[in-house]
């Protein structure tokens, strides 16, 4: 993928300025419809969900007390995993977006909610609500794009370090809550600053995050195992908590990857975003920078309705239980303006996202030009690019690009054959 402005065919080229502003007006109307009709039914939904989630977590933890019996371990661990996913995705994420602030209930409010995650709600609200949702998919500004450790775009110069990025991505998935905490703190950037020069704000946030991590870890890995000790379930409880946290981490990482990373989701160039981006232009960027996951009610619930990532990015503060009914209207708008409503089932989106991670871990065009037949020579090229310095890299890259172009031209001449 390339940022939208560098593409040979900009998918928004057919839209006039007036079209874009009209899109903004129509989306505002969809939003207002929901605001006008939200009420008791929605409030009952979130209260019931919070109630179910807390009972499920309590119940699962109680079952884990008896985790010395294997079926109870499985039951408790599955329940706890589901509870943690619900808490982070459909409840925590959405409450912290302010989706339920209109209820004026201090117990379910973005300013008071703290979630079951290593990152503090304050840190997350800044990096997610302010940075990611405002600068969605702008390379270099939206840290959700690769979290600063990954190559997410062809335009980023390839270096051998990126060969490891599928591994980083997997490790990040398993430890996702800590990854989020680190990037809320902009840990990488701050650690490069000499200790005495780091801002007081960073020091304070770091202390808060460490305190939160300590409390979270104490709960999951000390208190609950100790409570299970008299029943012989200490190890089981420890393992159950560990597995549940990893399951939750991998799941939320996967959902988030599916939201912005599959092939076909657009990224944007920092310089191409006007200073005074209009509401319509902002909406358009959200429309093209997100991807949906198709599926049933369970999928929507367990992804925290981020399966409606497009709708979520258009209307981040509308109650998540309303995205499903808004989606057909939004999709119709995409069709009306001939834009690509990016939607596919979870496995497909996940494959696509991972494929992109792997593709971008390799030099541009390497994967596309590799066939079983030329694999040995391609590997040789890759080896040379990885070990021999920038000059060789540049030359090899030029050859790869040329090869890709030739293959494309050949494919174009033979319309019957599949494109490379």
């Amino acid at each position, binding site marked *: 993928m390339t940022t939208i402005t560098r593409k040979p065919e900009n998918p928004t080229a057919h839209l006039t300025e007036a079209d874009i502003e009209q899109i903004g007006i129509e989306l505002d109307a969809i939003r207002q419809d929901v605001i006008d009709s939200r*009420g008791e039914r929605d409030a009952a939904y979130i209260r019931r969900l919070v109630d179910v989630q807390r009972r499920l977590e309590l119940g699962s933890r109680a079952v884990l007390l008896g985790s010395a019996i294997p079926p109870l371990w499985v039951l408790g661990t599955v329940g706890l995993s589901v509870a943690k996913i619900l808490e982070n995705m459909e409840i925590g994420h959405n409450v912290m977006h302010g989706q339920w602030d209109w209820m004026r209930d*201090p117990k379910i409010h973005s300013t008071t909610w703290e979630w079951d995650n290593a990152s503090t709600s304050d840190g997350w609200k800044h990096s997610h609500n302010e940075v990611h949702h405002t600068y969605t998919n702008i390379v270099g500004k939206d840290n959700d794009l690769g979290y600063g450790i990954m190559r997410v775009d062809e335009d980023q110069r390839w270096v051998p370090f990126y060969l490891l990025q599928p591994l980083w991505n997997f490790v990040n998935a398993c430890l996702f809550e800590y990854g989020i905490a680190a990037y809320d703190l902009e840990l990488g950037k701050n650690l490069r600053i000499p200790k005495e020069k780091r801002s007081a704000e960073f020091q304070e946030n770091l202390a808060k995050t460490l305190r939160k991590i300590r*409390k979270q870890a104490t709960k999951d890995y000390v208190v609950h195992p100790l*409570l299970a000790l008299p029943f012989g379930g200490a190890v089981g409880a420890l393992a159950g908590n560990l597995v549940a946290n990893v399951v939750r981490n991998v799941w939320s990482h996967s959902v988030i990857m599916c939201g912005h990373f599959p092939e076909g989701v657009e990224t944007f160039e920092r310089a191409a975003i006007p200073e005074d981006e209009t509401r319509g232009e902002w909406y358009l960027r959200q429309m093209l920078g997100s991807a949906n996951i198709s599926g049933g009610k369970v999928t929507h619930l367990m992804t925290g309705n981020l399966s409606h990532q497009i709708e979520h990015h258009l209307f981040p503060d509308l109650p998540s239980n309303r995205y499903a009914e808004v989606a057909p209207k939004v999709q119709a708008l995409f069709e009306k303006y001939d834009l690509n409503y990016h939607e596919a089932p979870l496995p497909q989106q996940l494959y696509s996202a991972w494929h992109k991670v792997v593709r971008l871990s390799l030099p541009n065009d390497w994967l596309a030009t590799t066939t079983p037949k030329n694999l040995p020579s391609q590997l040789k090229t890759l080896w040379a690019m990885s070990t021999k310095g920038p000059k060789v890299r540049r030359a090899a890259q030029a050859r790869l690009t040329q090869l890709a172009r030739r293959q494309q031209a050949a494919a174009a001449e033979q319309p019957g054959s599949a494109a490379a």
Partner: protein
Amino acid sequence: MVDMTTAHLPAGAGGRPAGLGRTLRERVRTAARSVAESAVTPLDLDDLLDHFHPLRRGAELSGRVLEVVPETAQSATLVIKPGRDWAGHVPGQYVRVGVDVDGVRLWRTYSLTHGPRRDGSISITVKAIEGGTVSNHLVHRTAPGTMLRLAQADGDFVLPQPLPAKLLLVTAGSGITPVIGMLRNLFSRATPPTTDIVLIHSALSRAEVIFAEEIRGYAARGLIRLVELHTDTDGLLDVDSLDELVPDLAERPTYACGPAGLLDALEAHHSARGLVLHTERFRPVTVAAPGEGGTVTFADGREVSADGSTPILDAAESAGVLMPSGCRMGICMGCVLPLKEGAVRDLRNGALTVAVPGETDPAGVPIQTCVSAPAGACSVDHS
């Protein structure tokens, strides 16, 4: 979590000397609580217990509606079982009630209409006013079992102890509500007080009299002298007719509750003659002409605009900002926030409060958001 904490409860502490037992129990309870807290973080233990026993001791105060008793076509009494921490009340006091209407938590203040009851329940009597979101919801659409948020009883509209020999009570419309609480309390005693009580009550019509049978009953039993006026036939209560209605007016301290017009007239009448008057107002007196209004900026950057007659509290709540609030009529100081910059106008008297960075208190000038409207752009230290 519940089963886990019980595992830490003391066994056989009963046999110890009372003092030692208590301290040990306290200590064990504190320890069990801190274990439980560390087991449920980032939630508080109370967040969880709320799902099982919202009326327990230590919970944020709330109440469960037990009964909704219609009084007139447009009014009803809600009997409420308050949480264990309800500290009780004196008849005549009010309670702030948080009601979820269409999913939105709204707070209103109502007089308590019973003296302390033997069953521990409390009651409020609500008159549905035209266009009143909360009052209509409470009167017409509230079922037993509904949970309400509560604040502790408050207010100084209470009878003095010991009671004076003579009393005059003046009420109009739903202004009867604090007074019925006083009367019920007095007359439920084994020996009713000997105080000579006159109640002047004015309502729109005979059918609109809340607690009609009850007050007429007190009068029939000779417990009070009742002067019942109906606006449709008698016109509004004219304070100049008081001497006629109550010849010994000067001997009677007056307690009055009703619309602002009546209370204002009474205040003028009584102060001119040097008579004692206690009033209870349901709404703030707003004398200020609507001012300029403006935009209020909160600490987190949120901006809310309000016109010159809308309190900052209402405007901010409508915009989804979680605001501290209390009586909503400028009495309890529960809504006070620091004004960092700009000006606000007090809706009760039009007074301007101004905050200038570098000149006024750096921590901000405290303002009552429930009776202050913005007068131009201003910023409030709250998020």
